[in-house]
């Protein structure tokens, strides 16, 4: 019993679906921010540079995270002249997961656990 209490460490006690989502898509704070950003601003259509400006983040970091989210089916990449722009990919199932994740992030305890999961990586 005592051992168990000591071992009740995150992220083991995270909801399995959310843990799965975290593990698959959210392995950095930038990705977390981007997911929230696209969730709150679902009609975003912009380049890494533009999105980096909205987030106040480094352009290269944002570009890497955008490419990752594109590769994982969350975003679509659009060629615009000599630029690459990103839009949310219409995928009800994935959007539903993002929705659950963003709802969960309203909970302080979940955020604490998720942050722990992130920095432990």
């Amino acid at each position, binding site marked *: 019993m005592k051992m168990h209490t000591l071992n009740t460490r995150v992220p083991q006690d995270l909801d399995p679906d959310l843990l799965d989502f975290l593990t698959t898509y959210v392995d950095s704070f930038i990705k977390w921010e981007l997911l929230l950003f696209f969730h*709150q*601003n*679902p*009609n*975003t*259509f*912009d*380049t890494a*540079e*533009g999105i980096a400006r*909205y987030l106040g983040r480094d352009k290269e970091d944002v570009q890497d995270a955008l490419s990752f989210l594109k590769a994982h089916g969350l975003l679509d990449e*659009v060629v*615009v*002249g*000599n*630029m690459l*722009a990103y*839009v949310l990919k219409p995928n009800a199932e994935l959007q539903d997961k993002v929705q659950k994740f963003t709802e969960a992030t309203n909970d302080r305890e979940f955020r604490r656990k998720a942050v722990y999961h992130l920095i432990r990586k």
Partner: protein
Amino acid sequence: MSYDTRIQTGITGFDTMLGGGYLPNTTNLIEGPPGCGKSTLGMQFIYHGAQQGEPGIILTFEALPETYYQMAAAFGWDFRRLEQEGLLKVIITSPEVTQIDLEHANGVLEHTIAQMDAKRILIDSVTHYESAMAHSPNAAPKSKVSLMARGTPAPGASEKFVERDRLYSFLNALKRQGMTTLLTRETTFLFGDEEGFSGGAGIHFIVDSYTMLRYVEIMSAVRRAIIVLKMRGSAHDSAIRQFEIDARGLVVMAPFEGQEGLMSGTPKRMAASFIKAFVRK
């Protein structure tokens, strides 16, 4: 008469000033100083359309869509619900992306407009577009043909000429999509009698209508005033009217000569301050 169908803004007094509303498939400029009510007027135009079942788009280059949901909510306009109903999209993008995307057939914006069957668009603000076009090497006009067709620009005028060409092609792309466009544009000076009027790339000449918002100081109180300076293909009210922003949005009052407050004051001085506010040096 069908040729005189009007696109109402839903702001009763303003629609009256416009002779019933904007003409369909036109580009319309709203210019004014910070906080004067440009975005509110634009959102009201979009909201009114959506209520009539006309889908609309808000294109922003700076303020996040969330900001619009919040601003709109203050007036009881539920923009999130309109988005769910397919009557609205608040799109954040950059001027460079917009310019190039619109030049290509089947771009994201053209596709969105067609898919929504959008009729109205608010560009808030065109100021960002203008400054990006003035600085961006990326957003060169699609071809030089249109430039050549209008002759070679005079030496030194070429930059402004290219800027104007970009703006022209951007606004024309929206017209081609059958949109009635409302553009907001910032002026940095608060009152009309200050220096600093900037014509940019000549947007005032390109647009079909031009409305100015101003702060006006009357008897130590700051009021808001509105005037329609130009409207192609239509008669319009040339009077200066006072307006207020309340829980319903913009409320445009009768031409200011008829205002109660003016009767009790010194009309001559007030008329002078209105004129001063609108007449540029």
